[in-house]
């Protein structure tokens, strides 16, 4: 089966790359769970979008959600930092915990939650302000007034998002003057500036050209050393390239979640196999 082979090749390339990277790191094999989801059902008005989803998201790893359009993967992603709260008429049952704390408990302040669980969207949405103000926005609204501190945060965030060298001489220019790929990295820097633990990414590279996509993927690879990353993608190759875990969603159900390598080479469910071999979706 050629597609399976091509995935195997991908995996092989990745492992080589990862061993190079990991050699610089202290190896920890124990998986600590960051987010736990139990029996989650989600409704848009009367229409149920997610059915009884349970999963754990391990710390300092990349978890990818794949599945055909409308399968609920983006909806599920947004339940993890309660972005669905903004949409009127949505309802949810079940439990989502971040390091053991129920994020839907009544005493949880959603603003505090979103500071810890940052988000990057499909369409890059820089604010119509300067590059500096874009990145400084999160810390500023959280009460950081010290200009020196802010500058430090902005520089560090831009460095982490691999954008610093390209913009360091024009921090006061409008963020809208950046290219599409740069704008998306700016949005990542902006999300990093609030110092989150978890970074949710909703198809962060789907509107970008291949070169910019590669840069974003490299960046995600770097970021997982410090952050827990959850990424929605409709590009299976991308999921195979960058994620440690992959979850396959179909029609609102979580069909299968496994180590990326396992899921792409030896899927347990028929539906998963059909999807990744391109028989549907």
């Amino acid at each position, binding site marked *: 089966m050629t597609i399976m082979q091509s995935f195997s090749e991908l995996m092989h390339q990745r492992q080589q790359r990862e061993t190079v990277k990991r050699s610089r790191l202290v190896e920890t094999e124990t998986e600590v769970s960051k987010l736990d989801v139990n029996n989650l059902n989600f409704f848009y008005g009367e229409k149920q979008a997610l059915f009884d989803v349970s999963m754990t998201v391990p710390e300092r790893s990349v978890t990818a959600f794949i599945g055909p359009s409308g399968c609920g993967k983006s909806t599920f992603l947004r339940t993890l*930092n309660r972005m669905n709260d*903004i949409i*009127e008429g949505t309802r949810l049952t079940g439990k989502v915990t971040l390091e053991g704390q129920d994020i839907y408990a009544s005493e949880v302040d959603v603003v505090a939650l*979103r500071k810890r669980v940052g988000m990057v969207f499909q369409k890059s*949405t820089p*604010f119509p302000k300067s590059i500096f103000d874009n990145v400084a926005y999160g810390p500023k*609204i959280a009460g950081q007034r010290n200009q020196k501190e802010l500058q430090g945060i902005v520089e560090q965030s831009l460095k982490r998002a691999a954008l610093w060298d390209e913009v360091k001489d024009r921090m006061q220019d409008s963020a*809208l003057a950046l290219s599409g790929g740069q704008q998306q990295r700016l*949005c990542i820097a902006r999300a990093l500036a609030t110092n989150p633990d978890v970074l949710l990414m909703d198809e962060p590279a789907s509107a970008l050209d291949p070169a910019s996509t590669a840069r974003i993927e490299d960046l995600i690879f770097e970021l997982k050393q410090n952050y827990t990353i959850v990424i929605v993608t409709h590009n299976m190759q991308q999921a195979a390239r960058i994620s440690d875990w992959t979850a396959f969603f179909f029609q609102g159900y979580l069909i299968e979640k496994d180590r990326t390598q396992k899921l792409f080479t030896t899927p347990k469910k028929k539906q998963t196999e059909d999807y990744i071999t391109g028989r549907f979706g």
Partner: protein
Amino acid sequence: MNVSGNLREPALAKRHRIGQLFEWACCGSTWFGMVVLSLLLLSIGWKAMAWPIPDADAVDRAAATKTDAKANALLSPRPLSTRFLTSYDSRVPQKAGIKAALWGSLWLLVFVTITTVPVGVGAAVYLEEYSNEGRWKRIIQVNLSNLAGVPSIVYGILGLTVFVRMFGLFGHDGKVLDFNLGFAMLSIPLPFERSVISGALTLSLLVLPTVIVAAQEALRAVPSSIRTASYALGATQWQTIRHQVLPAAMPGIMTGVILSLSRAMGETAPLIMIGALTYLAKCPGKIDSLSAVWQHPTGLLEAPFDVFTSLPIQIFNWVSRAQPEYDHLAAAGIMVLLVVLMMMNTAAILIRNRFQRRTQW
């Protein structure tokens, strides 16, 4: 096989002729308005630039009596002059000017802005950002549109009852509230009577529906992705509105506000209803120049509660007088009013263009 076909199609010529006719009709509509408007402007401009030519009888009488000769000696070359801008209304047309009306209109403008902007923008923000979709919102929305279409004279009656008389709550003589501000006394008469503040509040009511609807549209034009991105960074709803939504909507809001204000500046009917004075030889608070503010700063506190007149009222007053000279004074007044309004509209356009270039997503 002949695939080229016939490129001459007689039926097409007819279709082209219809198209041509339509173009001419549209062009005609454009020029109809333009021509009438420019004729009007030219005739008013011409009137404002020269006094009426006196007929033979009047010249004879002028020669016969000494007093008229004196008046003629004062005669400035044309109605619209710097003297016109710096003197009060007068029983002698050659001495009459528009000073009181200019300052009255300026005070109205200031107070209409102060009351309209916060209330209008606040209401728009509530309706667009906070309130839930539902029956109440729809009812409010429909009524806002209806209120925008209510004739201005109706607002005049409303202003008369609410602000000028205050439903007669304060009896025949009224009351005066005194506040000691430390450096000066602020005396607020209740009811407001025929003061600047009554006029400004009435005009403010008149333009509020338009301002709210314009501001709502500006807010709606802000892409929701900006809001979502702000929320995702841990902003509260107020922070999102304050730092993202309002700045992005500001050019649209400002344009709406300025256009509404220029409408308020041109309104006559409601001000006549609430009893703005048609003949007035003083400025509100006795402030008739910038230096007067330094000499007499408490005038700033008195002005809002002082009697007033405004540009359109002054014009209306002159038009209704018998002597032909007043017609020409009215023309001069119209020129001044038009210049003021054009300046405001230009400001609106400049603001819009300036911000449009800066915010493009």
